């Protein structure tokens, strides 16, 4: 599904990703972990198409297509969803209007007719339930005045509405209390299917108690330095990242 090969990325001349390789297939859940400032969010942004990054080497293909050549919106229409760590507030744009426009464009891209008003409202209602968002919220402006938890739930709500084939959730657990974390994780699990894949980017193992990964990767110094199964996450929780650093330094020498 998603194939990242030898990806090198810099911003303003500073290299952040230094040769990332990653393969993600249908039905899989991957967790990308690692200390702060090692390039986790950069990786998500490059997949989303944020323009401030320069890809200097390597490739990303999605279902066989060159992702790096696609405009931001086409990546979403191809089925990629990014759940942001800090979702932006957009005063004056209602969630309803936002989702209606997004769905319409995605469906048109896929050759599907637009939903009727009734179908759309039904879908909104149904998906809002998954993350326990009240209907009142959908008339409000996107993220405006939302609490941290509401913002993250709104991200998962959008994911539910757009039904992506690949979801990348960037630090979705940050700033969440235990109840919000449970709601978000339950939402993600409900949306899981054999046809889609999920990538969870996180600092802490906590989220992985709820969203159980098939694979865990550790990103350090711009590279994936270690991959394993969910036991690796538990080991990281227990031992911290220092041993990874030491191992990495030793291997370099």
């Amino acid at each position, binding site marked *: 599904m998603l194939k990242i090969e030898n990806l090198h990325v810099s911003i303003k001349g500073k290299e952040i990703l230094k040769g990332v390789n990653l393969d993600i297939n249908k039905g899989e859940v991957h967790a990308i972990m690692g200390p702060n400032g090692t390039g986790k969010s950069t990786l998500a942004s490059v997949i*989303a198409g944020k323009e401030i990054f320069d890809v200097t080497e390597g490739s990303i293909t999605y279902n066989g297509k060159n992702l790096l050549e696609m405009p931001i919106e086409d990546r979403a229409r191809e089925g990629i969803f990014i759940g942001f760590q800090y979702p*932006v507030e957009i005063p*004056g744009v209602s969630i309803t209007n936002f989702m209606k426009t997004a769905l319409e464009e995605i469906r048109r891209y896929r050759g599907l007719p637009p939903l009727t008003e009734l179908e759309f409202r039904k879908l909104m209602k149904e998906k809002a339930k998954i993350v326990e968002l009240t209907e009142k919220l959908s008339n409000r402006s996107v993220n405006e005045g939302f609490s941290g938890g509401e913002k993250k739930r709104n991200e998962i709500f959008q994911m539910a509405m*757009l039904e992506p084939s690949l979801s990348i959730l960037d630090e979705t657990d940050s700033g969440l209390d235990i109840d919000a974390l449970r709601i978000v994780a339950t939402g993600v699990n409900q949306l899981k299917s054999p046809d889609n894949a999920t990538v969870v980017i996180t600092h802490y193992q906590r989220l992985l108690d709820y969203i159980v990964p098939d694979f865990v990767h550790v990103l350090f110094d711009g590279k994936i330095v270690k991959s394993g199964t969910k036991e690796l996450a538990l080991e990281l929780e227990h031992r911290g990242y220092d041993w990874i650093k030491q191992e990495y330094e030793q291997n370099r020498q």
Partner: protein
Amino acid sequence: MTPFTQYIKDLYVGIKNQLPCAGNNAVAEMREKGLQNLLEKDFQIYQKENRKMFDDHIACASGMKPQLTPPPYRPVEEYFHCKVKDIDTRMCIFRNGWYVHNGNPLTVEENGVITGSLTEALRQYPQLVFPYLLAENSPKEDSLSAINRLLFNDGLFVYVPDNVVVEKPIQLISLTDSSEHLLLNNRNIIVVGKNAKVSFIQCDDSIEFKPSFINNTTKIYLDESAYFSYYKMENKNPESLLFNEVDVEQKAHSHFYSNAMTFNTGYLRNKINVFLTEPFASAKMYGLYLVDKKQHIDNQIFIDHQVPDCESYQLYKGIVDDSAIAHFLGHVVVRPDAQRTVAAQTNRNITLTDEAKITSKPFLEIYADDVKCNHGTTVGQLDEEAMYYLRTRGICEVNARRLLMLAFANEIADFIGIDSLKARYKEMIRKRLNGELTICDQCVLHCPHLGME
């Protein structure tokens, strides 16, 4: 003397005996005062501040003439339908500067509300109307105000007696459809009594694409605890020159609210002068301008806090595209006595091209020490982060831009108190930003493109 001043002077001398109330000495004196004032001011301020605006716009009105007699009556339905859904207004239509009526130029209702032609009101109720017509010049009178004083022909007169709440909004529709290049000077007078309440909707529209020079003055007098809402909509052809000056005099506890929307224009100046003359009066003013091509809009607001405990609030927003030009000049004066004044002034702009031009001058002049005043201006592009976010959800750049512009503009429409009007304005904003409403040859309120079918 500028050639245009000379032209107006000659025009006046030639037609002065044909102007309304020609035999009345007080009116003649008022016109002469206007002439003196014009000769004195002679467009100096326009030449100094904006030479190009003067040369390109005002001076080209030389040669245009007023229509000295009313056009023959035609039933209004033949050329005008208001398409705002479910809005019920008392409609007052002016065609080429003249009040349109079929034998009844002035309506007096049972509750004492008077609406209709100013010249007729002067004839029927001289003692009521003359003092307002002949009131002192406003201190902000400039060359254009002087021309209106000099050449005014007809205008709307509205009188709402004390304690009367007018349920139906009064709608003033000014249409031009002459085969001549018109130079029109309407003078409207609106008097709202103690505890009275009325909404007023003013639409300026062109039916035909004929260059014209329209220079209106509206005088509004709000007595104690009066409540006046003023909605203004402009959708003129690109050859039009439209100058609207509104002077508002407010007594104690009165409320003035205005919301001015401009969708299309040629050269437009909206000037509002508010004089807060007694305590606890409040003025709230909102404005939105969506201009493109070579349109030019000038919003000038002057608020005079003469006494303590008044409040004023301004929020003007604009989206300026192509090589359009927008000016905002907001001037708030807080006099030495005007303690506990609350005044806020905000102007926000979005430019969509490198050629679009915005000048914004928020200006507070404060002579009292116990006041709460703030002002702010922004000129910028759309929020890049928001654009990115919308695009990551599959929305293309063009639509993301539209959503953000719509949100920016709708904030002003949200302050409209009449639901049907708000819905219509929002629809128009949407169509305007979608490019579906570029320039209408008719009033946007009855534009066929906007039919709800």
